[in-house]
């Protein structure tokens, strides 16, 4: 699913510290189809940057990065947008839901930007309700995100990420804002989704329980992959 070779990424700094700040210094790793991969590392190690590259939010890097057979660096803005819309799903630590929309409208948000054939509003809402049921928040249909608990918000964000049946789910600290019970439930949900739909999971995390549950752990230290292996193996 993912093939990364020699990925380098720097940020340009302005002001007194003007210059280049290298964040990724040649990252190599692979993630197979249907695998559950955890990306771990200290703050500032480049995990979120790697996630942005995988998600096609940033294509200013060097090296080779292929996701689902697509060389992301060669895609135009429209192609990257279509990739984000149909091939991947994002789940963020801060949920990133739109508070002024209902829960169903949040879940169906990707449908509004679909380029290959528009869906009717009815079809969009039906799919959204189905996904809310899948992630266990069917009782929140019609509610606003602001009325949901942290765990429920994250389930809603996962439902949105699944809207177009993505091949790859990219999650940035998905349990970072949750209590341990909610976090455990979310991890269980990820595993269930992976088992049921075969979606590939790539999760950036500090959470050792997630790392332990992963099929593959990719540890990034100072911009390079320090360790890549099975979750329980890394824990050990």
């Amino acid at each position: 699913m993912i093939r990364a070779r020699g990925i380098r990424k720097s940020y340009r700094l302005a002001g007194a510290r003007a210059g280049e700040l290298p964040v990724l210094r040649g990252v190599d790793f692979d993630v197979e189809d249907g695998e559950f991969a955890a990306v771990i590392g200290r703050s500032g190690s480049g995990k979120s940057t790697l996630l942005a590259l995988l998600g096609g939010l940033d294509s200013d890097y060097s090296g080779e990065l292929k996701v689902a057979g697509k060389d992301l660096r060669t895609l135009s803005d429209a192609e990257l947008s279509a990739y984000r819309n149909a091939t991947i799903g994002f789940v963020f630590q801060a949920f990133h839901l739109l508070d002024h929309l209902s829960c169903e409208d949040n879940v169906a948000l990707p449908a509004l930007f679909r380029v290959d054939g528009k869906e009717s509003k009815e079809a969009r809402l039906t799919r959204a309700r189905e996904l809310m049921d899948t992630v266990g928040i069917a009782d929140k249909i019609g509610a606003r995100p602001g009325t949901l608990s942290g765990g429920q918000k994250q389930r809603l964000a996962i439902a949105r990420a699944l809207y177009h049946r993505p091949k790859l789910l990219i999650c940035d600290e998905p349990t970072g804002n949750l209590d341990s019970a909610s976090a455990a439930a979310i991890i269980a949900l990820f595993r269930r989704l992976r088992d049921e739909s075969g979606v590939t999971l790539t999760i950036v995390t500090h959470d050792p329980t997630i790392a332990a549950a992963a099929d593959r752990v990719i540890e990034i230290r100072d911009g390079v992959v320090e360790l890549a292996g099975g979750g329980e193996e890394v824990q050990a």
Partner: protein
Amino acid sequence: MSSLGAIVRGNLRNNAVHFALASVGVIVGIAAFAFFLALGAGVREVVLGKIFPLDQLEVIAKSMTLDVGPVSLGLASDVLDEKAAEQLRGVAGVRGVYPKMKLTAPAIGLGGKQIIGNDIRTELIIDGVDPALVQGEFSGSDQFRVVPDPLATTPTACAADSACPKDMYCGKPYRGGPGKVCRDYVPVIASPHMLEIYNGSLRRAYNLPRLNPDFLIGVTLDMQVGASMVQAAEKDELLYEKLKLVGFSDKAVPLGVTLPLSQVARYNVHFGAPEAATRYHSIIVKIESKDQVAAVAKAIEELGFEVTDGGAEQAGFLISVFVLVFSLLSTIIVGIAAVNIMHVFFMLVYERQREIGIMRAVGARRSDIQRIILGEAACVGLIAGAIGVGLAYATSRVFDYVSAQHLPDFPYKPETYFAFSVDLVALALGFAAGFCVLGAWLPARRAARMDPAAVLTGR
């Protein structure tokens, strides 16, 4: 676009207060814009529609005169004929050609008792126009037609109107003499200008009642063709007619009465020569569109005719300058409002970075983000524009009310000074939406180029 419309609607609801504050300037600017454009159009309608009709030209023969003391001697014929009318019909942009003929014999009118209580005896100025020129213009326009020649029919003697067929009266024979016979009324039309001058000025000077045009329809006036208060001008023979007012039209002679052309031709032939039947004093040329007036006038002058200058061109120019100046001021107001819109959208884009990042993360293209922001701006513009037009309309009604209630009557005083056309409303709405879109252009561009990774990952 319809799915993006759902986002636009949601954002409009969500940021209603911001947008309401941002649109105040647009509302004021568009209100001023629509108000002055409508005022210009309304004044233009009165001035160029009633005082100086601009969709027609009056063509006369080219005059050559020699001034000898106080007298101007004509050195060439000052009449037009059927051949000239045919030439004018051939000019590109001409919709119709309608000859006019002046009565070349003197005439006296006697009447007015029905209206002001006393009969007035006055010299009459009489023009003849082609009835087709006024066809359909007023409700009695079909009655404006030549009546049968009294000399070609045998008159029926009578003692009273009731003895005559409907629509006829019992009066003096056409050429005078003893007894009374049944006669046709000669239909006439009058210019509303006369009524305006009467109601606006004369009635005050002579303490007379204000006249209602509807009341005047059907009023009759005795006419003696060939008679004059100037003894030297009086003809040996007089013709007796009774005129009946059938309507008002701005195609009628401004001061005097207007008869069907053939009726006037009949009198001119009677007191002159047979060829007087086709000797026109001017020809009204109707133009297909107001934009073609200058081109048609030039073509007519190239044919060797003269176009009378009624002042329409200068009036039109002055009105255009007036409208232009106030439109420019309104544009400046809307322009300043657009800068305000830009500031508000910059602020909103900054506030909505996270929302924009989310949309980018779920597949929105840069162009989608740009379209959403510009769509919001267009909607704000359309709503503000509609409120602005509404405000302009309300102000115009107040203006008209104040004018009707508190301004003294004056000639051509209109019921409304404003003309709000569909085009004007569309223009104002388009203008408002256009300026708002222009104001939101840079913020939309910035939103589209925002780095979603930085916003969403907190980098």
